[in-house]
């Protein structure tokens, strides 16, 4: 620990001595971590959308005409008893009409009054069912369809399905691109460290004769890689930190409908994940690059 300031100063010297290689490594690092941060922000939001969708979009069951109140109540109880059901909400025909009016006659309430005594949704009493987990939705729907008194089952699979598809597409693309970039970054940082090692062969030989431990000899090279790694994370983290709010605002204003359905994650929530993972990733890349180079070029 006593030698840490010395090792750090040695690392900076190394970086400066082959500035071209260092800057190139740094650029690739910045690009890699920036991509990671961007993808992570998108994935976290998509995940949040899916979760929200699961919470807000349920299965709707409509009843056969003339089903008695007791039958409807029994059906409700049978549904509630299912383990996969989180919540069941009854909507009467009157409530359905009220809701419909609110949405489709907004600002023109007078027009709706024409239907006042003749509810167009008279047969639209329903149960809205929210499941614990969306994945069981299909099976549950077919069970529902088999129940007596059920006229129609509406499953809102489309939205969440699309979200999940988008999410996995982004994830796969990110992993593929990141894998390539991480390898490139490791190799480049390793190259930079190899240059430093070759420039210091003489010094290393002298140090060995003086009784320098392997840790003391390797330290500056490991720190050199770690420094480039961490610096490469800092720049994209700052960029994403300041870039996130305007981007979210931009999406919100362009896709008003989307913004009404889904809430974007607040910046703090996204960065609570992105910061530690970016730093760990970049540190890992830096250390891995150095370690490979040390193993290859530094004979002990």
């Amino acid at each position, binding site marked *: 620990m006593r*030698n840490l300031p010395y090792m750090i100063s040695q690392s900076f010297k190394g970086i400066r001595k082959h500035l071209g290689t260092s800057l190139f490594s740094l650029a690739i690092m910045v690009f890699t971590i920036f991509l990671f941060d961007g993808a992570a922000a998108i994935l976290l939001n998509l995940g949040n959308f899916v979760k929200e969708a699961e919470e807000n979009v349920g299965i709707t069951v409509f009843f056969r005409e003339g089903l008695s109140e007791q039958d409807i109540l029994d059906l409700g109880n049978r549904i509630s008893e299912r383990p996969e059901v989180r919540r069941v909400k009854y909507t009467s025909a009157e409530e359905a009409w009220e809701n419909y009016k609110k949405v489709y006659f907004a600002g023109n309430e007078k027009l709706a009054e024409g239907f006042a005594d003749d509810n167009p949704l008279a047969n639209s009493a329903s149960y809205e069912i929210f499941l614990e987990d969306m994945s069981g939705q299909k099976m549950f729907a077919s069970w529902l369809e088999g129940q007596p008194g059920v006229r129609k089952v509406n499953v809102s699979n489309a939205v969440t399905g699309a979200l999940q598809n988008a999410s996995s597409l982004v994830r796969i693309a990110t992993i593929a691109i990141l894998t390539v970039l991480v390898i490139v970054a490791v190799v480049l940082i390793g190259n930079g460290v190899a240059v430093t090692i070759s420039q210091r062969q003489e010094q290393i*030989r*002298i140090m060995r004769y*003086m009784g*320098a*431990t*392997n840790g003391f000899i390797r330290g500056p090279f490991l720190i050199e890689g770690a420094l480039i790694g961490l610096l490469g994370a800092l720049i994209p983290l700052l960029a994403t930190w300041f870039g996130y709010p305007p981007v979210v605002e931009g999406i919100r204003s362009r896709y008003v409908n989307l913004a009404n359905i889904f809430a974007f994650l607040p910046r703090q929530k996204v960065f609570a994940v992105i910061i530690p993972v970016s730093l760990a990733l970049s540190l890992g890349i830096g250390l891995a690059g150095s370690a490979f180079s040390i193993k290859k070029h530094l004979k002990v």
Partner: protein
Amino acid sequence: MIEFRNVEKRYDDQTAGSALTEFDLTIEDGEFVFIIGESGAGKSTLLRLLMGEEKPTKGSVVVDGVNVGRIRPAKLPYYRRHFGMVYQDFRLLKDYTVYENVAFAQRVVGASPQGMKRRIPKILEQVGLADKADSLPAQLSGGEQQRAAIARAVVNGPMYLLADEPTGNLDPSGSAEVLRLLESINRGGTTVIVVTHDAAVVDRARKRVVTLRDGRVVSDREEGGYEDA
């Protein structure tokens, strides 16, 4: 104490070094010994075995009761701290000042900053370079560079000082300075081993002279001279 006990060292690759055969040599603590011999006699091999850089093919090198060939790689750095090394080409770090070069040796062994501040000026005083502490090696004469290298070699207080052709690149006055310095370090209790071709230095010093030829000790005299061999 340093003991070479019936050491044999063979190299598969002839260019890697000269062989030693049935090599026996004992150096007591506090001695001043010249090792002389033609190139290819095995002098460098002897130093490499002593520093644990090479292992003997047969026999053993024992330093203070420790078999050098058996030291684990992780322990080797600590073993080497018993030695100070001085080279013909000085091997000072070019972009470090004299002070920094000496400090470097202290740093390698994890010396405290306070200890360094105390010790380094004292050593530089001892080698007569107190006023050159801030000079770069290129600004010094050969003799001064070698004295800086000696300061670096002894700053950690080694038991043994190994000097490989320390006067090989120096003019007579530089050589004389270096010899005087080595003698004074020896008087302080450090065992000094000098590998050399420099007949003048050996003749002037009148110390123990061990002569190697073809990987064997062919003569070993107290207060010897170069030509006696």
